[in-house]
């Protein structure tokens, strides 16, 4: 079994090279879509089965796999080594599992696209990078994956790069991520400087024996800043909604299920460092709560199906970070998993809808939910799975989202005993966000699939092919049963929280949460979130069933002045534009042009002139006579020998 594990890393890379380069070099192969899709899918599915086998055979001791030594300089010794433990196995299963389904889905979705082979090449490359990120046992290999997924994200957002806004969206994602990556590099330098090693285990050990002191706070703060970039938190989340410019399977895989959760994974991986710095934990929880509620509010006012889902993702990522901030790392990973299932399902469902709308050729914008409605009649599979996932994300018992979200809310509430603290406020905001989640998701589903048909009735949409609906069904099934991996503490005192048991060796949750727990509080919290979720879903459903699209006006009225802010996405883009981009552009334009004309050009021309003059004086040596050349060579040999003997 262990001998196969390197394949988990290598196969996606092989697939990427095979499909990408093969398609690039061989036009015949490029046209053979089924072969391209098959190879690419196999290169993700095989690693999934390997990881799954390793998962079920895992005996509790982490497996170290070292491929080769990468660089060695002084004390620095970095090797391509991977650690297979409980956390990485779980994440690996999610990534390759959801990844395989999305590969299968893409075979149908990308059918007929000119860049078919390129798409699958990038997708495989992404899986390769993501596996490096997850399984790497040191910062450098992890960072290789971290940058790799950023690169793939950039390539895939800008997949249709001939469309200018899409190319710009890709750049925006790349630059926003770069800010976070910079913090990551500083964190890595600090870690190496302090403990002389870049291994995660060494860092965790250094925190455990207290040799890190206050520096743990700075390291964890920097890593959190890095995570705000990749995992789309305030202030760097603006790239994620724009990233929806990419093909929908990409949104599902990269910008919902896997890449954006890598920040959460990293924090969980380094949980001792974070647990040792409560100040940073407070910052995390505040930022996350703000992100969650702001994104949820924006989502209510959006009309683009993918934009709603994008803001929903930002909001759910906020939930995960709130859990991290409360020290409930298991809850965060649990939500990563359930979110991967239902959000991937939602995105793929939206892709199915867009696919159908595009093929009618009668609507201007195939992503605008105002021109949809009544699609359930034409797309039964898509609408059923979409509904299941909507209910799951809204936290309806007993679907997956209920369990993970409830665990997060419980952790926040039980963080301390006082009636009024930062964590209690955050808990309140989180509960509010949960209600908002139910509202915007129900609105989205109602407007898309129910009510009157608002598109021209000259043509009607068709259900997508089986290669697209089968992944939908699988993901919807997972969204139903996924939650049972983590039954609440209430039932059998955590005895049935399988995930918690599984992750116990690598993750130490905040013990205060369990200590503060009592039967009364827990039952109160469960009942509260259940009632709120069901109430919100029913209220919204009834509102939109009665009024259809006109219900939006009522919502607008209810929110009053706030709605304009929500519609304008809290004007964050405009703010960044005014305070960052414009000043930088003008400084760049003026200062740089002076610098360029005088210093750079001067240096370039000057060095050119100097070289030309030197060359002019030396060219006389080129007599063209080989005897002269040999004479010079022999002189050199005799001189060097003389130096070696007598010098």
């Amino acid at each position, binding site marked *: 079994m262990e001998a196969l594990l390197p394949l988990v890393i290598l196969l996606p890379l092989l697939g990427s090279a095979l499909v990408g380069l093969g398609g690039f070099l061989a036009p015949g192969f490029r046209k053979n879509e089924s072969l391209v899709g098959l190879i690419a899918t196999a290169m993700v599915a095989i690693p999934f089965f390997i990881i799954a086998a390793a998962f079920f055979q895992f005996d509790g001791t982490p497996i170290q796999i070292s491929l080769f030594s990468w660089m060695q300089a002084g004390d620095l010794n970095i090797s391509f080594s991977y650690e297979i433990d409980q956390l990485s196995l779980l994440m690996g299963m999610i990534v390759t599992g959801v990844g395989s389904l999305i590969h299968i889905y893409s075979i149908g979705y990308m059918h007929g696209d000119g860049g078919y082979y390129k798409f699958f090449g990038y997708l495989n490359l992404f899986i390769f990078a993501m596996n490096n990120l997850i399984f790497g046992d040191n910062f450098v290999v992890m960072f290789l994956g971290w940058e790799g997924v950023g690169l793939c994200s950039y390539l895939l957002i800008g997949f249709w790069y001939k469309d200018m806004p899409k190319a710009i969206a890709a750049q925006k994602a790349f630059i926003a991520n770069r800010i976070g990556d910079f913090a990551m590099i500083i964190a890595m330098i600090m870690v190496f400087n302090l403990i002389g090693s870049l291994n995660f285990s060494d860092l965790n050990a250094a925190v455990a024996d207290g040799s890190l002191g206050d520096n743990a706070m700075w390291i964890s703060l920097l890593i959190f800043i890095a995570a705000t970039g990749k995992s789309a938190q305030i202030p760097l989340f603006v790239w994620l909604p724009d990233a929806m410019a990419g093909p929908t399977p990409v949104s599902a895989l990269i910008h919902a299920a896997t890449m954006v959760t890598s920040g959460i994974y990293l924090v969980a991986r380094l949980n001792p460092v974070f647990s040792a710095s409560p100040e940073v934990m407070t910052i995390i929880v505040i930022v996350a709560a703000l992100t969650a509620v702001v994104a949820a509010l924006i989502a209510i006012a959006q009309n683009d199906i993918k934009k709603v889902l994008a803001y929903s993702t930002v909001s759910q990522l906020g939930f995960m970070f709130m859990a991290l901030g409360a020290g409930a790392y298991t809850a965060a990973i649990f939500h990563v998993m359930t979110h991967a299932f239902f959000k991937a399902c939602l995105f793929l469902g939206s892709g199915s809808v867009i696919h159908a709308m595009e093929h009618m050729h009668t609507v201007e914008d195939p992503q605008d939910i105002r021109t949809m409605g009544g699609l359930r009649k034409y797309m039964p599979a898509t609408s059923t799975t979409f509904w299941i996932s909507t209910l799951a994300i809204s936290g309806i018992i007993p679907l997956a989202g209920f369990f993970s979200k409830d665990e997060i809310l419980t952790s926040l509430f039980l963080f301390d005993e006082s009636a009024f603290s930062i964590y209690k406020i955050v808990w309140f905001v989180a509960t509010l966000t949960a209600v908002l989640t139910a509202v915007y998701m129900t609105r989205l589903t109602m407007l898309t699939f129910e009510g009157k048909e608002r598109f021209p009735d000259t043509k009607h949409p068709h259900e997508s092919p089986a290669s697209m609906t089968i992944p939908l069904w699988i993901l919807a099934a997972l969204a139903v049963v996924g939650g049972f991996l983590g039954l609440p503490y209430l039932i059998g005192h955590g005895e049935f929280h399988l995930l918690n048991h599984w992750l116990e060796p690598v993750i130490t949750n905040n013990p205060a949460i369990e200590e503060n727990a009592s039967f009364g509080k827990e039952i109160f919290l469960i009942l509260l979130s259940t009632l709120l979720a069901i109430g919100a879903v029913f209220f919204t459903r009834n509102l939109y069933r009665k009024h259809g699209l006109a219900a939006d006006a009522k919502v607008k009225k209810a929110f009053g002045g706030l709605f304009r802010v929500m519609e304008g996405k809290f004007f964050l883009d405009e703010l960044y534009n005014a305070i960052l981009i414009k000043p930088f552009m003008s400084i760049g334009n003026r200062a740089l042009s002076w610098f360029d004309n005088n210093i750079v050009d001067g240096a370039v021309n000057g060095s050119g002139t100097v070289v030309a003059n030197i060359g002019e004086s030396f*060219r*006389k040596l*080129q*007599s*063209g*006579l*080989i*005897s002269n050349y*040999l*004479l010079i060579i*022999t002189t050199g040999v005799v001189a060097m020998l003389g130096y070696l003997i007598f010098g």
Partner: protein
Amino acid sequence: MDLLTPTILSYLTVSLLMFAIGTIGVMTRRNGIVVFMCIELMLNSVNLALVTFSHMWDNPAGSMLVFFVMCVAAAEAVVGLAIVISIFRNKQDIDINHVNIFKW
């Protein structure tokens, strides 16, 4: 008599002298073909040194290298003479001091 008995150094000295004569020939002669023959002489002197060392250590590497040098020398002679012929055909002359088209 003892001084007359050849040692490894004796062979190396002969090889060295031949190499030096070859080098001087390449530097002084003007006839392209003779220059070429001087290069062959240099190659042969090196071969002699290699065989001497091979003999000294009773090791095949030196002899093998000599074998390959001979093959490469044959190949080089063929190509070199072809170049000489084509130069002669163009200039009616193979004085290498007149073949200086690579001059600045």
